């Protein structure tokens, strides 16, 4: 067979180097071409990751046994010889950027699997890559070079079977730098500065939210084919909101990154919530930040206290409680002003107060405090609300105390911050049926004081970005909407209020709680796409959820129809007219064309969710990749 010249660009020789020309015959297989090529370059190195890319056809020549003829390659083919793994800049859910080598030749689905393996994230099928939203960069910002965490040095082979070392995958244990990377991955980030939140793009409508979904990469095609270049920036995000088998023990990175994604979704109002919910999210963020500072990396520690030990602990506490004289001493020193609400307009009267267990009693004076109190109030089950203004030195505790006749409203006025923090903490605990001897009393006081401190520092301007635990700007914890609505010091008591219910959570529990509340939001898990239904002349929005599709009328802004996947009989894509047709049980047929995203993306979303729902069945941990592609690939996969 006649030999002809084939010129191949070898990327490693530099972009200016001329193509290497080798003499081949049409029956030479691709492997042979590579051997010849390598010989010709006379460079000794590991070429095992390299492969041929056919520029015109946008195709990898990965089947080394196929001949040039079978591939249909002639002398005019422009081939590039390059590594299959190339560095990319990966934007993580926590906003950090990671540089690592990703596979450019396999379907994105596998690329993501590889990345997740390196980062130690289980269930990679839930994540995917998308093109980032371009940030409007001002000149000023450019000076602050973004910190990039480098993982490109990790040998690809070491990642294949991650073994744990010191609670983290072995490849992170190599150097201090690598450990830092792992810390970045597995520890939550401090609350972002309010300006940072304000600067980010926030979708203002469902249509805005729909646009992001046009950016997902196609899972069944490779990066190279989708025009991604070396060192391009991509985002790694959780795409399918069906988080299977979340186990804090094994999922440190996964949990942390999911939390970060959820946190940003809340802060940027990607998912709507009410004000009360926002305050709770804020409180949880505050708490998570606080706990992760004080108990870093307890995620991996086993919380398995011997039950005897814990029993003894609790006994100890109880015993302390028994000698309530101690706790009494702390608080009975207080002269508290007291006003039962409706009784008088005159304001406050001074009494001598005693705090005991879950009750407060008051006396005319200290001298009489040995005798019968004027009244004793049990605070168990009561509502405690602060009414505080540090600058005005107002320290009120408002108590709503349940009684058979209804709620009694009572105000306690404290003299100063110190007293307020103690009494407030006492009331909070008592309302939950805990006595002052409870181990959480001191930490409760602490948190109240740090919230008070926040009020103080925030009353000036919010530019002291010293992100110490004590001085978090509460604007960092809520979406910009509330920056406008409330001043930081107005926000503080509200967040503190919500904080009471979560203050005792461990880091893991707090993360899980955050995710749970996020998942319980009505709009959780909805990915929007603007579509046009067959026969309709206006754009509408299709919401894709883990278990259903919803149709949203843009005019009304309301859900007009819901279809559940489990009623779905089949779906088709007409690639020519870019239309999806779905048939549901009971002869329900819908068809729509996609406006803001490619048909394939919508197809993949739906197929992907159906794939996710099949997971629970197979107990094995192996990922059924074939099924995924079958469900999401469309014709191109095969």
């Amino acid at each position, binding site marked *: 067979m006649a030999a002809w010249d084939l010129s191949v660009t070898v990327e490693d020789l530099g972009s200016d180097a001329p193509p290497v020309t080798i003499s081949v015959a049409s029956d030479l297989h691709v492997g042979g071409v590579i051997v010849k090529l390598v010989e010709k370059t006379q460079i000794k190195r590991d070429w095992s990751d390299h492969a041929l890319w056919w520029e015109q056809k946008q195709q990898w020549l990965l089947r080394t046994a196929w001949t040039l003829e079978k591939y249909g390659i002639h002398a005019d083919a422009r081939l590039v010889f390059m590594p299959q793994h190339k560095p990319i800049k990966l934007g993580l859910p926590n906003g950090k950027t990671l540089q690592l080598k990703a596979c450019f030749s396999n379907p994105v689905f596998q690329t993501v699997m590889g990345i997740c393996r390196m980062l130690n994230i289980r269930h990679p099928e839930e994540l995917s890559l998308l093109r980032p939203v371009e940030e409007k960069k001002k000149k000023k910002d450019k000076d602050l070079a973004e910190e990039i965490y480098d993982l490109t040095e990790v040998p690809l082979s070491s990642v294949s079977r991650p073994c744990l070392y010191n609670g983290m995958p072995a490849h992170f244990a190599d150097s201090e730098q690598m450990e830092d990377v792992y810390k970045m991955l597995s520890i939550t980030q401090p609350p972002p500065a309010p300006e940072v939140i304000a600067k980010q793009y926030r979708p203002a409508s469902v249509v805005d939210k729909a646009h992001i979904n046009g950016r997902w990469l196609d899972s069944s095609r490779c990066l190279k084919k989708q025009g991604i270049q070396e060192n391009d920036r991509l985002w790694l995000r959780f795409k399918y909101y069906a988080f299977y088998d979340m186990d804090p023990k094994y999922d440190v990175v996964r949990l942390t990154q999911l939390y970060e994604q959820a946190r940003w979704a809340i802060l940027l109002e990607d998912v*709507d919530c009410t004000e009360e919910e926002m305050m709770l999210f804020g409180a949880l963020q505050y708490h998570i930040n606080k706990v992760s500072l004080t108990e870093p990396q307890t995620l991996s520690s086993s919380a398995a206290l011997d039950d005897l030990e814990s029993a003894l602990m609790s006994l100890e506490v109880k015993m302390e409680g028994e000698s309530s004289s101690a706790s009494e001493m702390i608080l009975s020193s207080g002269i508290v002003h007291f006003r039962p609400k409706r009784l008088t307009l005159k304001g406050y009267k001074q009494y001598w107060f005693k705090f005991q267990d879950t009750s407060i009693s008051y006396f005319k004076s200290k001298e009489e405090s040995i005798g019968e109190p004027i009244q004793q109030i049990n605070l168990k089950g009561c509502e405690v609300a602060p009414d505080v203004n540090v600058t005005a030195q107002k320290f009120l505790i408002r108590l709503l105390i*349940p009684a058979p006749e209804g709620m009694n409203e009572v105000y306690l006025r404290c003299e100063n911050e110190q007293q307020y923090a103690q009494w407030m903490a006492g009331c909070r605990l008592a309302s939950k049926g805990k006595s002052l001897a409870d181990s959480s009393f001191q930490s409760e006081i602490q948190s109240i004081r740090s919230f008070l401190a926040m009020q103080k520092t925030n009353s000036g301007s919010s530019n002291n970005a010293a992100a110490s635990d004590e001085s978090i700007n509460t604007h960092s914890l809520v979406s910009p909407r509330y920056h406008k609505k409330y001043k930081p010091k107005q926000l503080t008591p509200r967040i503190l209020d919500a904080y009471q*219910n979560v203050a005792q959570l461990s880091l893991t529990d707090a993360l899980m709680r955050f995710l749970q509340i996020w998942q319980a939001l009505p709009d959780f898990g909805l990915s929007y796409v603007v579509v046009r239904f067959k026969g309709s002349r206006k754009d509408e929005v299709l919401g894709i959820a883990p278990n259903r599709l919803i149709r949203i009328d843009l005019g009304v802004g309301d859900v007009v129809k819901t279809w559940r996947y489990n009623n779905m009989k*089949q779906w088709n894509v*007409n690639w020519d007219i870019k239309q999806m047709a779905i048939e549901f049980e009971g002869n329900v047929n819908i068809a729509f064309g996609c406006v803001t995203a490619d048909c394939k993306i919508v197809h993949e979303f739906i197929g992907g969710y159906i794939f996710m*729902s099949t997971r629970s069945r197979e107990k094995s941990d192996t990922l059924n990749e074939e099924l995924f592609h079958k469900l999401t690939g469309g014709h191109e996969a095969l």
Partner: protein
Amino acid sequence: MDDIDAMFSDLLGEMDLLTQSLGQETLPPEPLRSPKQEIDFSIGFTGLNASVNELEDNDLDALMADLVADLNATEEKLAAEIQGLDVPPPSSSSDLPPPPKGLSHQPTSSVTSPSSPGNNYSNSVTTPSSSTASPLPPPPPQSAKPTMEEIEAQLKADKIKLALEKLKEAKVKKLVVKVLMNDGSSKTLMVDERQTVREVLDNLFEKTHCDGNVDWSLCETNYELQLERTFEDHENLVEPLLAWTRDSENKVLFQERKDKFEVFKNPQNFYLWKKDKKTLKDMKDKDKELLVQENFCGTSIIVPDLEGVLFLKEDGKKAWKQRLFQLRASGIYYVPKGKTKSSRDLVCFIQFDNVNVYYGKDVKNRYKAPTDFCFVLKHPQIQKESQYIKYLCCDDAWTMNLWVTGIRIAKYGASLYENYKTAEKKAAVSSALWTNRSTPSSSSSSTPSPTIKAKAPAQANGHAPKPQAGPPLQGIGNLPPPPPNDFLPPPPPDPVLPPPAPSLASKPAPQRQQPSDLPPPPLSMDSLPPPPPPPPMENSLEDPPDFLPPPPPPTSYSSLPPPPPPAAGFGRNPNQSLPPPPPEPEFLPPPPPDPVILAPGAPPAPPPPPPPPAPVSIQRPAAQPRKMPPVPPKRTTPMLSGGGGGGGGDFMSELMFAMKKRTDQ
């Protein structure tokens, strides 16, 4: 009424004394404690290691013995005194351990045998298994000879554990609660504050020999406010009862409540309520299962998507105003006037942390409500008219049911589903028991009775002394005096086991009379004054008043599937939502994952087979097979021990466990 009051206050006084001596702090005065003991304690337990190392063996033994003796004495008395009181002892709910006083003054060296009547008493209501446990004399702590240091340490640890248990036990509050049956009769139970509603229900199942289906519930009615609600199975019973006022005419009812777990039987009615009636009705079992899984088995509990215009009466105002309300996991919200429904505009109406949801009755009359379908949100402590009670009126009963269930899901979350699963298991066991009993094998029916007999004396002990004082005041508002007294000795009536068997044979018809007839015979066994058959009390509050929970398996209202001839019984019971005693079969097999695989029958792609693989195993059994779930045969024997599990967590078994652990050493 006056002398009743007098008696009552006497009793209360007595109880005050008692509780003080028990170390439960009573309201104002702070009982002085002997400081010496406290010091001993705190020394012993300040540090973890210190406590283990410093306490000598004999210290521990003494501590144990003292505690036991102390308990024996006081609890016995207390049990007697407290008896018949629905109303809680007015003790503050302090968490304090027992008075050290008792410890030093009661130097019984007796072994730590768990024979304290108090304990037995509380156990007696639980299960056979616990009663079998008690006879085993646990080895005295001293007997074990520490040969090795580790063993020694372990022994100490065990002793400390026991001591802790004792301490705990000593502070446990107990209430005697009268529970009204559907037939107007009542049962009196001792409930300690650790017991959950589930455990109390299990006791009642034993006492009444009802079928134990999942719908059985304890309900609380508030007479003054005309409210009622079903206790959730995981709640502790004592706590809500403590909120009742002393003169309260509130009641605790034992009834079947279909709405209790309806959401798990027909989740589509709650989660897909917007769909048309027919779709909902035709919902396939596997789809129902899927819905339950989706909403209750994920990382987060999903609250039904509820939204609608309701009438609201709040802040003590008289007027009812309409608002568009929305239910979310975090609370109920409403859309303010002129605003959109978007989440951020919603105004929080109420959050659920501090309120319970109740059904309101007779609201049209009482408050001029637009409809009678009213649910109420209030703090459990509030017992009288108050501006802090919120009334919400719905257009129809179904909407009301939706909201109440939705609120319960939001408030209790995963616990609801766990309750359901537990109830189902329980129902399976008891239905198995019933099918078993119905077969004329004498063995099965005779096994249980001895155990109960064995228990009876203990109960009698605990109960007999001073029954009269308390009961009339509380509980039954309508007919206070006579019946309650007669009811006092009721615990015995439960050994009714023999009768059921015959009655079963004759199936449903005799149901009516039996209940009232049955109690007496068993009583005679225990030489207690037989309670006269109760005058059928009119329970104005109960809708299905003539339904009796008799020894023969009482069944759901409409269906009376007597266990013995299952096939026949079921034939008459096509009602989908009223499962016969054997638990609904859909739930028995571990919910097989849903077959969601679809065929992406895209023209180009080779379409995978449409009907997915999964369902084969669950193919909804046709009516017949459904009735005969594999359960009955399986559970027949385990029933007893299974029942024991139900009482779980009681002190005796803990003790036994500890003892066993030690002997294993």
